[in-house]
């Protein structure tokens, strides 16, 4: 049945955003497992987990395309259409960076991460997991804000954005420590390069999460 009243209501892009954020969250856990697995000597599942991330990235990509493809001209949203696209790009970049990090590890899995850096990397990964987790909560809370336009709800969203910024800052510190250590180790330069670049890639996960927060801040601006 095609009622004119009904055909005005389209599938909300926020459904897609939530779904996409959920995928990002799913990959956070897998990412942590993969890095830990890589560093432990007994674990053989690294490749399997990396494949899992690749699969999640593909699914997230499909969701992203679906959102972009289903907002035709003349769609009225609570926020600017391009703000959603820009937000989505950042959220998608998070998952891309996760994939890049695992790929980068896999290019030189032997000798892998030097023992001296294991602990720092574990802390570093922990630090970037938090902002990834926050993203899906942020989308859900923002959606609530667009529903009730309450100032209290806006404050909740802003608080999440603030904590994303803080978490990115924390992650940065670990990145600096790792880079400093790696560059001053007396080991083969290829490993140094491998580690520095790995730290940067993992660091960019948190950067993109923070960027997503900034985009969200623009969306909930009055």
């Amino acid at each position, binding site marked *: *049945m*095609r*009622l*004119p*009243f*009904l*055909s*005005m*209501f*389209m*599938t*909300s*892009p*926020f459904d897609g955003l939530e779904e996409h954020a959920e995928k990002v969250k799913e990959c956070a856990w897998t990412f942590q497992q993969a890095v830990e697995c890589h560093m432990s000597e007994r674990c053989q599942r690294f490749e399997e987990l990396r494949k899992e991330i690749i699969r999640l990235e593909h699914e997230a990509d499909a969701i992203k395309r679906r959102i972009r493809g289903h*907002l*035709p*001209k*003349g*769609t*009225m*949203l*609570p*926020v600017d259409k391009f703000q959603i696209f820009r937000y989505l790009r950042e959220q998608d970049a998070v998952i891309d960076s996760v994939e890049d990090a695992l790929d980068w590890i896999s290019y030189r899995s032997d000798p892998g991460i030097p023992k001296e850096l294991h602990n720092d990397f574990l802390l570093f990964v922990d630090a970037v997991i938090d902002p990834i987790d926050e993203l899906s909560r942020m989308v859900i809370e923002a*959606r609530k804000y*667009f*529903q*009730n*336009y*309450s*100032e*209290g709800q806006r404050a909740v969203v802003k608080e999440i954005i603030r904590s994303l910024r803080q978490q990115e800052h924390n992650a940065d510190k670990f990145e600096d420590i790792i880079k400093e250590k790696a560059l001053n180790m007396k080991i083969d330069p290829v490993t140094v390069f491998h580690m520095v670049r790995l730290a940067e890639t993992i660091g960019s996960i948190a950067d993109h999460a923070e960027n997503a927060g900034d985009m969200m801040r623009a969306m909930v601006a009055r």
Partner: protein
Amino acid sequence: MTSELIVLIVGYVFGFYMAWNIGANDVANSMASAVGAKAITIRQAIFIAGILNLVGAAFIGSHVTDTIRKGIVSTEVLTDPHQALIGALSALLAAALWVSFATWRALPVSTTHSIVGAMVGFGIMTGGFSVINWDKLGAVVLSWVISPVFSMLIAFFMFKVIIRLILSVEKPFTRAIKLAPVFIGLAIFVVVLSFLFKTPLGKKLSVQMPSALLIALVAAALLGWLGKLALVRFAGDPAVEGEEGIFRRIQIGTSCYVALAQGANDVANAIGPLAVIYFLVKTGEVGTKVPVPFFLLLFGGIGIACGIAMAGHRVMDTIGRKITTLTNTRGFSVDFAAATTVLIASKMGLPVSTTHAAVGGVMGVGLARGLEAVNFRIIFQIVIYWILTLPAAAVTSMIIFKLIQALY
């Protein structure tokens, strides 16, 4: 049995069928926002819509009935009773056929537009293009553009006001309770005014403008206050429902308001031509003005109510499942805008479509950034069917006219 009687019976059948179609098609537009926002259940929607459309049709609906016929087609065409009879019948038939076709093909057409088109077709057949009052027709066409725009503006400002005064404050629930009399009062104000100026009963009282305003104001204040008391009593749990819960309750009222307005406005589509047929058969002539007897309005109202009862469920069910982002504050804004537009327009004697007023209302809320995703391009699709409906109904009406003339 005389041929006149046969015509009258056929007129009744098609008048009823037209009213049935109005009920089946247009109920979606009046109840959609309430059902979509889960303010009322499907069963309640059908009940409210059925009863109040009937009441609106029977008690408020007489003013518009003569305007459609009189305004657009010059009364010259009615000087020959024989021609007028065929004309009215073919107009009714054509509109009913076109609406059925539209229902079958699921085209978003308005019953109001169909009957206007069919009337124009009949006018052209009997008196040529000169009998058509192009200025009036132009005004009607213009009102179809104006009504969604007007409704859009009302909905836009209403929702903006709700955001500003209620949603964004620190304690929206308390504020909503506090301001409830204003929102209830506003709705009551428009209802009372339209009642005083439009209904036969209201006209009998012949209240003039300043005192009418005063009466409406007093009624609005009183009922608004009573409404608030009722809300405080039955407000529900603020933690669970919050300010939306308040609007959910107000929306039950506005749904009634829309159903009433719709009944008053749309009954003319079915009963207008039938009234002409009725008078021609009974008195053999028809003047410039046809007083529409009460029982005809009631007949139309029953037709609409039957349409709602029989087909409403399927429509509502679809709406309830498809529209999930409409909350009660938004639904209230849409309802209020649509009903106010329809009442004001019919007060001015313009046959507006409830569909377009409702569509305009949703767009207004969308513009106020109240909805997660609204498709504005649908307006172009609707405009195409506006443009299409008039000539299609007119041509159908002309063909039927020729056919009946040949047979008769």
